[in-house]
């Protein structure tokens, strides 16, 4: 206890307990179905939040939330300012400290990291991290604009590039440097569609054959329609709790074992290499170090496959495949659930589950939470899953957040 003198009045102030090394657990997680969502923003967020609240084993009330971090690219400018407060206001969290987190497609990956840090700082015990995007109610022109605002406007955009174009440049260069080829990308597409087929929350629940995926409409040479994720509406919400309050809510928490984040140049031409992402490499190194696990320990990973080449490169950057062997990894089926080394995108990934920009990062965490809790319906459940990873990339690799979750603390 100490005393604070303000305006000639003396206030008693309790010492804030400073906890060192607070562990953070996920006690609940939920999302909407991704796709062309019939609901508006507030209702979508409320649905995701309600699913998260209801997933907590013991009773949970919205007004318990100390802080909220909500990722969004601002859904077509519909509510550009105070985006987050309007959502918490309509989901029972009125009055909590809230803010929007924006890092393009990695917005909610960073919201999750900020939420974790809020708890680790000792300032909050229960924190919500989430994300939301809704763009399918926009005109085609307006949608294309919002999809393009996160790239390098001054140089890349003036050279005619959108994200399909930047990832196409990466793909062609990877083919050239390492001998990978479009068939490798097709294998990734087929796998993710197969994984997402049974996912009730997925945007595109459709299996595709190798032949069909290989002959898709060319979007940005060499990437075809089947190499590109859809633009989805959706919201996702994850509830984090400090270790000293976890048991009030569940006896079976999923621990957030590690987190890492990094950034890089927005424009490809400023980067050291366009066939790897240094933001991912930095983020995952930090996450492995803070969690004490290695790539070989990961049972399942939700990887940012906005384009199939992004997954191929990520398998290398995350350490699942050797440098230049991401194509071989895909060809050998080493990312197929319950068959390969590590289940890559058991939800279907962005390719099949969908990509509601700001909601994607915490949506990945929802999948990992359910998988590690063992509550995913067969045949999607990964057998004996103990450790999962999420990998959320902003734009063409300017930002990246990686998180590692485990059943053990």
């Amino acid at each position: 206890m100490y005393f604070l003198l303000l305006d000639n009045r003396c206030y008693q102030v309790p010492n804030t307990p400073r906890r060192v090394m607070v562990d953070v657990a996920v006690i609940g997680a939920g999302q909407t179905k991704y796709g062309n969502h019939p609901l508006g923003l507030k209702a979508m967020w409320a649905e995701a939040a309600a699913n998260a609240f209801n997933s907590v084993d013991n009773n949970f009330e919205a007004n318990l939330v100390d802080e909220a971090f909500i990722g969004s690219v601002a859904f077509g400018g519909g509510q550009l300012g105070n985006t987050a407060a309007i959502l918490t206001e309509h989901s029972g969290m009125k009055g909590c400290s809230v803010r929007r987190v924006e890092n393009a497609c990695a917005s909610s990956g960073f919201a999750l990291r900020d939420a974790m840090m809020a708890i680790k700082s000792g300032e909050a015990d229960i924190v919500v991290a989430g994300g939301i995007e809704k763009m399918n109610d926009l005109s085609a022109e307006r949608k294309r604009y919002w999809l393009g605002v996160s790239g390098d406007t001054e140089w890349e955009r003036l050279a005619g590039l959108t994200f399909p174009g930047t990832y196409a440049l990466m793909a062609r260069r990877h083919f050239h440097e390492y001998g990978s080829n479009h068939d490798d990308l097709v294998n990734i597409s087929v796998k993710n569609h197969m994984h997402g087929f049974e996912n009730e929350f997925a945007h595109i629940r459709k299996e595709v054959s190798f032949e069909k995926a290989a002959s898709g409409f060319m979007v940005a040479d060499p990437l075809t329609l089947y190499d590109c994720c859809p633009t989805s509406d959706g919201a996702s919400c994850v509830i984090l709790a400090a270790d000293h309050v976890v048991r009030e809510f569940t006896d079976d928490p999923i621990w957030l074992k590690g987190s890492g984040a990094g950034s890089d140049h927005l424009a490809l031409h400023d980067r050291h290499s366009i066939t790897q992402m240094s933001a991912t490499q930095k983020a995952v190194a930090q996450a492995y170090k803070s969690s004490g696990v290695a790539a070989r320990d990961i049972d399942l990973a939700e990887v940012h496959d906005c384009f199939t080449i992004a997954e191929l490169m990520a398998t290398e950057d995350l350490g699942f495949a050797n440098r230049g062997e991401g194509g071989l990894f895909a060809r050998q089926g080493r990312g197929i659930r319950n068959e390969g080394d590590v289940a890559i995108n058991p939800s279907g990934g962005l390719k099949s589950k969908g990509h509601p920009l700001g909601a994607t990062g915490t949506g990945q965490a929802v999948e990992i939470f359910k998988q590690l809790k063992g509550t995913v319906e067969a045949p999607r459940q990964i057998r004996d899953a103990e450790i999962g990873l999420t990998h959320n990339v902003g734009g063409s690799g300017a930002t990246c957040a990686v998180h590692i979750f485990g059943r053990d603390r």
Partner: protein
Amino acid sequence: MMDEKTIVWKGYLACIGEDSCIVQSPWYLGEDCVFGADSDYTTLAIAAIQLLQSKGIQIDSINALNDVEALIINMATGVEVMQTTTDDSEELSAEWDLCISDDARLVVCKTDCDVELWEPEGGLDVDEEFHQKMTSAWEKECLPEHVSQGAYVSQQQYEEGAAARLKLMSQKVDGELIWPPRQMDEKGNPMPQASTPLQGIATIESWTKLAAAGAPSEFSIRAPLLGGITTAFVRFEQGPRGVFLLVDDEDNNPKIEDQVQFAIRRIYAQEGYIRYGLKCQIIRD
């Protein structure tokens, strides 16, 4: 005295004399010389001045009518453009004249110089329907009220980067060239002014052709006519890399390791202001 030999220069046809040069579009609609998909008098004028400059001819200022963008020519070539609304010689004070024709050709010459007519070789036929649609598309795009849903590069921001965009000006730091320019180094120190031009040769490291539906929305009027737009990722001989559209929005697919050179062309227009920039052109044997 003009050399009758046709030069292919910056994607145009040209001939040069001691104190003059003629530059024109390679495209023909019947007998008429017409602009290509991304050219106008400003891009022709820049090419003409650069051709003379490449021969060691110094041009400080030039007289021109209002058919060209004086600021863009100045930023691209360093030549001051003395503009007038009439061809009244009393208003004109520079030693050089920029004379435009009523088709897609122009002359840059000394004020007292007589320029001979010249028939170039290597003209190409353009499809009439394509030409008409492209002309209409640009007219629509250049209207002051045209504001695309595309990313917004303000006039101020555009002009701030113009030296790098139009002249490939780079920053020299410890012998290394940095392009496009950056603000601060890793120690937080301000970077030097961009004053060292990159040489205009680069090698393609990757490329893509975006379908019209996938092109940025600021290209949405013209991309369908072009069947998509092609972008090359290149490395300059001095090290820096960059991304550039292909000159004339060429239909040819590039190859990795192809060498390219650069020419200034129209990129897009918004709010009545045309953004010009360098595009790359594959160097064919």
